[in-house]
């Protein structure tokens, strides 16, 4: 497998407070890769910097220190034309499908925008075939979704339209930022399965979520973030099956299960939540098992 995307020591520092006097480190020295044909889930609570990482990858927000590399090139150095090409290969889909669309226009206008920007010369017939192919890849019926306004479609349909829009391009990496958090339980699993199908087609997917069960279901590798720091990362089976860092253990103990009540794991929860260490400067990621990294005090 080839490395598509590499984050090398990425930091994001915001200036906050009056006159930007205070500094807030939202993302602190984050390093990981996303390979082709792989789903990596980025899991963290609110304020952990997970969306900021997604925004830095999509160059919606500049990197303060470190670099985002796509196929070995530093994304920050891209000029206008290179950036245009970059977006041909890397696209993002965000949390709220209802605010991603302009309610004044029909929903399929997102396809037209892609055509104007990337395929202005393509004949109408070929373009229609491509749109039909992209829609069938996301299991949407063109007669049901084309020529409709956003309010006439369900959240799941809108979210799949946005993914279809990305598929019209030569997409290699998809940044999916909480894309199913706002969908209903009966439809969210279909969108999640769709990510699995795309993975089989060779796409790399960065799946950003706060929901551990969704991350566990779909991803090959998992990165757990806490206040901008990676506390644990590795193959999903190992991170969920044998969590090493107390913070990961605490998160897993607080997930509501269907068949096991919290009381039954209460002892575990008390023990692990007491053991979550405060943020200490100078802690480092240590490889405990092959490819399984855990943050330890220096």
């Amino acid at each position: 497998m080839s490395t598509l995307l590499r984050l090398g020591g990425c930091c994001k520092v915001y200036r906050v407070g009056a006159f930007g006097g205070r500094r807030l480190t939202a993302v602190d020295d984050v390093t990981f890769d996303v390979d082709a044909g792989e789903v990596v889930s980025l899991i963290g609570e609110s304020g952990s910097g997970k969306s900021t990482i997604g925004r830095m990858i999509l160059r919606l927000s500049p990197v303060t220190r470190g670099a985002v590399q796509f196929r070995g090139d530093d994304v920050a150095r891209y000029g206008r034309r290179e950036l245009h090409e970059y977006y041909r290969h890397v696209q993002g889909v965000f949390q709220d499908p209802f605010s991603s669309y302009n309610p004044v226009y029909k929903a399929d206008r997102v396809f037209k925008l892609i055509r104007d920007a990337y395929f202005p010369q393509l004949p109408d017939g070929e373009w229609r075939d491509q749109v039909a192919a992209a829609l069938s890849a996301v299991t949407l019926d063109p007669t049901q979704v084309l020529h409709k306004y956003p309010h006439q479609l369900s959240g799941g349909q809108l979210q799949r339209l946005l993914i279809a829009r990305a598929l019209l391009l030569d997409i290699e990496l998809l940044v999916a930022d909480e894309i199913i958090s706002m969908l209903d339980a009966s439809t969210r699993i279909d969108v999640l399965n769709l990510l699995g199908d795309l993975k089989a087609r060779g796409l790399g997917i960065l799946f950003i979520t706060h929901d551990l069960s969704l991350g566990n279901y779909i991803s090959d590798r998992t990165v757990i973030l806490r206040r901008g720091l990676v506390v644990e990362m590795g193959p999903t089976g190992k991170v969920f099956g044998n969590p090493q860092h107390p913070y990961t253990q605490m998160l897993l103990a607080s997930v509501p299960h269907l068949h096991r009540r919290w009381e039954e794991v209460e002892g575990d929860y008390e023990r692990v939540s007491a053991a979550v260490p405060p943020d200490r400067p100078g802690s480092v990621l240590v490889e405990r098992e092959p490819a399984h990294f855990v943050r330890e005090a220096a």
Partner: protein
Amino acid sequence: MGLRVDDLRVYYRTLRGDVRAVDGVTFGIGDGEIMGLAGESGCGKSSLGNSLVYLTGRMRYVDGSVELDDRALPIWDFEAMNDYRFKKVSVIPQYAMSALNPTRKIGKMTAELLRSRGVQYRTVAEELSRRLELVGLDDEVLSMYPIELSGGMKQRVVMVVSTLLNPSLLIADEITSALDVSTQKAVAGMLVEFRRRGFVKSMIVITHDISILAQVADTILVMYAGHLAEKAPAATIIDAPRHPYTKLLISSLPEVGIRYAEKRLHGIPGIPPALLEPPEGCRFRDRCPFATDRCRRRPPFAEVADGHHVACWQAA
């Protein structure tokens, strides 16, 4: 008997006609019962919860009756409900974070609220600080503005203030949805603790997240498109549901431990019907893999086993 709702119908007025969000709903909640109310967005679960406390301008009471502790609740009469609101029925609204008046300090706001119900702040002040301590908050929050508190803290303040007069029924509307997993667990645990200490007698916990209900609820009521689908003890809903919608819904939930590579889950094809002129009969018919001609008539919400009600011809 705690709450008794009989054939309640509450519609939304729109220019194009009535949206039948709560359409003929009959159920009961026992004393000390925590009932979870689950369903997809737009199924009417929040409308049902709100209609027991506060009918907003666009909501229209159509038919049915509500009894709380053997006394009829005049839910159609906004003024008359003032005698019950906050004292007998109380609500933790969906956006508790914005439920607080930003221009008042928490303590002053609470005092104003109490005065509107004819209760002296002094008489409950001690109890208030005891309860704040219970949820892990300091007395100091009373002299703070809402903006000075974090989201989780505001949520807890609203929980304490809403239950201050020991209401008989508390409606908690999506109170854990905007919270992180660890805070979610703490807030859900507090609900159970509130009942144990007798701050509230019975509760309706509204959420789209069935796994939260599996943790806190005694019984679960599943709604679909303005109708009731199924009500049963929580374990029965999760392990042995009888309504096709509940079955498909439960089987589509990913749990920690289920992996895409090993076991593929499936969603429910289709979308719920529009509630403006909804179809006759069972509203799940179009998406239901077991639908027959019989489903053109509305199935009764019948008791199929002790405490287990299902609205489906097949299950009856």
